[in-house]
């Protein structure tokens, strides 16, 4: 396993570049965390995922 970057490490690195979008999504959930339901913050998540996908693509 050594010598090769694990997928989770690549994932973590890419996610780390999206801290602004992540904060927005997190705030959306935490604002009303007593009554979370599916796709409550779908818009914020879409932005976050777009950012992650962009960050992950870069070599």
């Amino acid at each position: 396993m050594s010598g090769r970057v694990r997928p989770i490490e690549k994932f973590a690195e890419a996610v780390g570049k999206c801290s602004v979008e992540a904060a927005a999504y997190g705030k959306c959930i935490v604002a009303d965390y007593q009554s979370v339901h599916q796709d409550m913050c779908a818009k914020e998540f879409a932005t976050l995922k777009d950012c992650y996908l962009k960050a992950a693509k870069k070599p």
Partner: protein
Amino acid sequence: MRPCSLRPYLPTSALRRRAPVSRSYAVQAPGAPTLEIFNQHVKYLQKERAASNAEQSRKVDYIRDEVAQRLCERLLDIQRHFPSVLDLGANSLNIARALANPDHLTLSSHPTSAPNAPSAPDVTDPSKLLTSRISHLTCAETSPTLLHRDPEPQSSIPLELQLLYSLETLPYEPNTFDAVLSSLSIHWVNDLPSLLAQINSILKPDAPFLAAMMGGDSVFELRTSLQLADLERRGGVSPHVSPMADVRDIGGLLSKAGFKLLTVDVDDMVVEYPDTFALMMDLQAMGESNAILKSAGGLARLSRDVLLANESIYRQLHGEEGKEGIPATFRIIYMIAWKEGAGQGKPLPRGSGQLDLKDVLGGGDFKVS
């Protein structure tokens, strides 16, 4: 989706493990049937996988080494000689190492701090005392790769490494050990009441049982943020963090198993991680990943979406202002219990008090002012 397989990561010996052949009488046990919560085989494979990467596994021994150290400090308080001691669930011989280097100079975690480590200027050197007080230490563990990961620590205590098939049934005769230690292992046991009763049986009369286990609120941050992420992304919750025993239950369980003179206390350790992925990777490298029975078939697999959502929620919900990292709380329950024996202090029977506390302490009835 195909369930993920641990196969490529495992040492070949782990794949060849067979259960020992055993037959038992058909019995109808009284009381509630034993609940199977954890998948013991999955736990075994996780430990094997974690230990097969020795370097990584040594790096994440920080909690185990610290807890073993604190447990040994408690053993130090008992002024007596232990001819034969059992370390139940030895992991990577953490207790043996803590006994060999009583001032934190473990092989793995602080190789450079040896010369300038703060040495306790005690008149009575604890190392000499502890090592001379234990004549024989049996280290029992289920995972062979983890048990033999490091060479045996240099100490004057003769060690015996023993491989168990499972921690749930102990292969020892009654009245064998003068003390049983256990550090961060018994939280993976399905039938804790039965295990405690067995420990009580293998102890000699008036012998102590000292243990540390992960408690109910350990990594509650991860548990809550994963639940929220799961709820928002997939519309439901699946168990990603294994359940753990609560502090309140431990006292009851111990006294039910026949132990006397119980001491239970809790220690919260907060560790800071750069992000949730580092936390989860470390848990995996410790072999402490989730082992709930239901998660075996890939039912509770984490998708990337949930992981992504979890990272954001964890940071918002539990992250501290002005800090880069995220905190993770490990709640360790320490317990000391004694097997009943002659000459042991006992509480007086109920209702045998001759004095009124009111007369002793003074004061009187409550007055409403």
